[in-house]
């Protein structure tokens, strides 16, 4: 199982049956492939609909929030962008899953800009992390140069302050509760010392620290 797949599989198990979920571009999109049996979620696309589905035939008028051709499920509903962000800001999205450049110990997220290098714009990310009931950041624990992306304080421009509910990396799962960052789970085969070493942020360790659970069918599938 690649680090990204592990992250996506763990995030998928955070979602509840009946949830309305917005998945960001890239790694978060993979989450849809790993939903547990019996978990029925509705995917929101911030460009204007509920009910993203697998693509059946390409339609020039139907793209997802990444601008890519997509499909819709039976029972999907279309709307305009003002309505879409009324849904997002208004708490009608149960969870959003986004990638991150940096997360810091008080739950700030930076994921939209590297000054002087990458200034694509925030798109809908700032609204999503402020409005969604649960904000899940799905990212690799360290940057390519090995430096930690889980920091005491973000150095990049923020997407929002105190917004992250859960951070899932290939090493660990953290929850942010009342301003505190709490290590709740370790990835299979990862020990606490490794997480501490690769994390700049100060975090608490849950009394009931666990190892991420994946069911056997899942692990079998991933091994293939």
């Amino acid at each position: 199982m690649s680090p990204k797949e592990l992250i996506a599989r763990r995030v998928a198990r955070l979602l509840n049956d009946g949830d309305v979920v917005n998945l960001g571009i890239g790694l978060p999109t993979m989450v849809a492939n790993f939903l547990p049996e019996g978990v029925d979620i509705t995917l929101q696309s911030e460009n204007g609909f509920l009910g993203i589905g697998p693509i059946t035939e390409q339609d020039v008028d139907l793209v997802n929030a990444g601008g890519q051709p997509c499909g819709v499920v039976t029972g999907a509903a279309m709307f305009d962008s003002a309505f879409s962000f009324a849904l997002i800001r208004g708490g009608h999205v149960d969870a959003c899953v986004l990638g991150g450049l940096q997360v810091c110990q008080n739950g700030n997220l930076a994921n939209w800009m590297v000054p002087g290098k990458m200034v694509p714009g925030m798109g809908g990310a700032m609204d999503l992390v402020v409005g969604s009931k649960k904000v899940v950041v799905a990212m690799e624990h360290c940057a390519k140069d090995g430096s930690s992306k889980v920091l005491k304080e973000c150095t990049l421009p923020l997407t929002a302050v105190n917004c992250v509910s859960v951070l899932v990396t290939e090493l660990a799962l953290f929850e942010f509760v009342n301003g505190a960052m709490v290590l709740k789970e370790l990835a299979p085969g990862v020990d606490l010392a490794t997480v501490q070493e690769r994390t700049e942020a100060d975090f608490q360790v849950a009394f009931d620290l666990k190892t991420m659970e994946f069911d056997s069918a899942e692990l079998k599938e991933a091994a293939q």
Partner: protein
Amino acid sequence: MKNKLMEVSDVGRFFRDGMTIMFGGFMGTGTPPTLVKALEESGAKDLTIIGNDTAFADTGIGPLVTNGQVKKVIASHIGTNRSTGQRMIEGLTEVELVPQGTLVERIRCGGAGLGGFLTPTGVGTVVAEGKQVIEIDGREYLLELPLRADVALVNAAVADTAGNLRYRLSSRNFNPIIALAADIVLAEAGEIVEVGALAPDDVMTPAALVDGLIKGAA
């Protein structure tokens, strides 16, 4: 998608004394009759009701006021239901009158996660009393605040079993707006169809907003 269809008899459990209830409708047109009846029969009292008007004494939301179940009304117009005015004068029911455009925008605001908005409506009138006035580009605006409810009672023409809704003609009015502004959204539709029978572009309120659905009179 989850099936939201329930029996009318299941609806009573959503109502409690002291709740705030939003309802769709304009002088009764577009107010869900079966849901209002269920609320009436639940006996819930000390209600705050939010909607455009209190209709007539015996139609729309009217009977709830007449019955004395309502502690407070937030509406733009109460003139057609004499019992509302009478109870107001007798001090039995509090009435907050809000300009119609401001009322529906406050509800939209509550549903859209906004903290308020600036409107020119009401500047220099009694509506401005107690409100912050903010000047933008030399024009004065009132800062109006969001409204939300515990339960919204929505009337649709057609619904699929998942709760995608479609309205008809002038019975649309406040219905799609209140569907975003309450913790629990109950809808009534004259016609219930299978999921997929409403094309995605024909849905006016997405199923994700609807918690419970009943079949009303066609």
